[in-house]
């Protein structure tokens, strides 16, 4: 468990890493990185699934901004959470688990995340 909490929602899956600073608009929750596989999609209230973070450490503050602006994902599921994402979800209070085999999850799956127990179930 990276940060505790429970959430239910629809999965939005990225097979490539996500850099939050310059990657997701903190005001709208829409992915803005040019050429990213999720470009143009919103992460609001979704279970955001991606292998790990990348890019600037300011990304932690973007994750916080998403939450404050009401456009954050309901939870984050990673293969391996690095410090940018870990710092961001903890500052923001977003449930987050890592060590998950994310290859088994696809966009649109209904997910139940229990970060306290470090479990992710496909319903």
């Amino acid at each position, binding site marked *: 468990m990276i940060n505790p909490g429970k959430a239910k929602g629809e999965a939005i899956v990225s097979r490539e890493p996500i850099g939050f600073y310059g990657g997701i608009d903190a005001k709208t929750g829409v992915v803005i990185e040019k050429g990213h596989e999720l470009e143009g999609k919103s992460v609001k209230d979704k279970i955001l699934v991606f292998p790990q973070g990348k890019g600037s450490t300011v990304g932690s*503050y973007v994750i916080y901004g998403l939450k404050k602006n009401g456009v954050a994902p309901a939870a984050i599921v990673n293969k391996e959470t690095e410090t940018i994402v870990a710092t961001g979800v*903890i500052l923001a209070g977003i449930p987050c688990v890592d060590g998950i085999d994310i290859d088994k999850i696809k966009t649109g799956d209904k997910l139940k995340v229990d970060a306290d127990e470090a479990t992710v179930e496909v319903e």
Partner: protein
Amino acid sequence: MLSGEQGEVIERMSRLLVRLGDIYGADRMIPVGSVQVAGVSYKSIGDPGLEFLEDYAGKGAKVRILTYLNPPGMDLENWKDLGFPEDFAEKQMRIMKAFRKMGIITTATCTPYLAGNLPRFGEHIAWSESSAVSFANSVIGARTNREGGPSALAAALCGVTPNYGLHLDEKRKPNVVVKVSADLKFNSDFGALGYHVGKQVKKGIPYFRGIEGANTDQLKALGAAMAASGAVALYHVENLTPEAHLMDPKGLETIEVGEKELKETYGKLNTGKDPDIIIFGCPHASLREIAALAGKLEGKRLKKPVWICTSRVMREAANRMGFTEVIEKAGGKVVADTCMVVSPIERMGYKTTGVNSGKAANYLPGFCKQEVVFGNIDELLKRVLT
């Protein structure tokens, strides 16, 4: 702290420290004597950072220990005269206000040890700025990892840091010897040496031989460049730095640095030809460096802008000694708080910057889209004196 009885801010900040401690294998939390927080310039942290800081300050977050800041993106008092953009200044001031509300000393500098935040030998601290981290670990013998902005803030609010990395004796041992045969005269020579060695050793801990009688300005230049071109957070210098005699460098891989390597590094760092501006003070100039510049500019006239960046504290002393007046009479500026790397100089019409700092030469092309003229103080001034 973790259970939330001290409020949401402390709950999250202590969780952050615990999680980072897990990631890096810390066995426990240890109290820290002082903190230095990076991520201050609006140019670096933007609106997301500004909004986070205002929000946490508004929730009543207060630091427990002596906490200083890294440089902001402008001179906090004299920004208008120096030509810093108004929209930038407004955001930068909001950032400073949020930090002050948290009880952080807004003496913002990459040389806190020259401005009233001086740890003792062996003291555990949580500092962020890479050259300050290097100086504290190497020259003072205090102990800090290179903290990120949020983790340093968390240490300031909770008073502790996870015990791992450079807080531990066994992680402070050198893993490479650097044998210096080059003649090191100017501070820029130390910057060039640091740039060269940082590139080679990356995250390593170098043990220097052959450096004799370097002063703290020169060690500051050396460490800053190694932390910028590599990620060196601690180095030892035989017979000079306080932990060197505790180390056993026998059998370690050895790198040799002679005149040839130093000359090549000067060549590599020079990407420009004719500087629009010359900026000294990366890291922030000591009083000795300001005095030296004033001595060279006494009664002279500059045809291009020359800045020397320093902390507010050093500037006050320079004012009192008349150094500021001498530099200004020649047409130069003593710029306080900020520095060339974190300020938006690319928005102020400058394209080529002259520096004597290996660290600045490393960062200016990327962060500020500048071409660089790298040289010693005399070479640089020769280009701009009438």
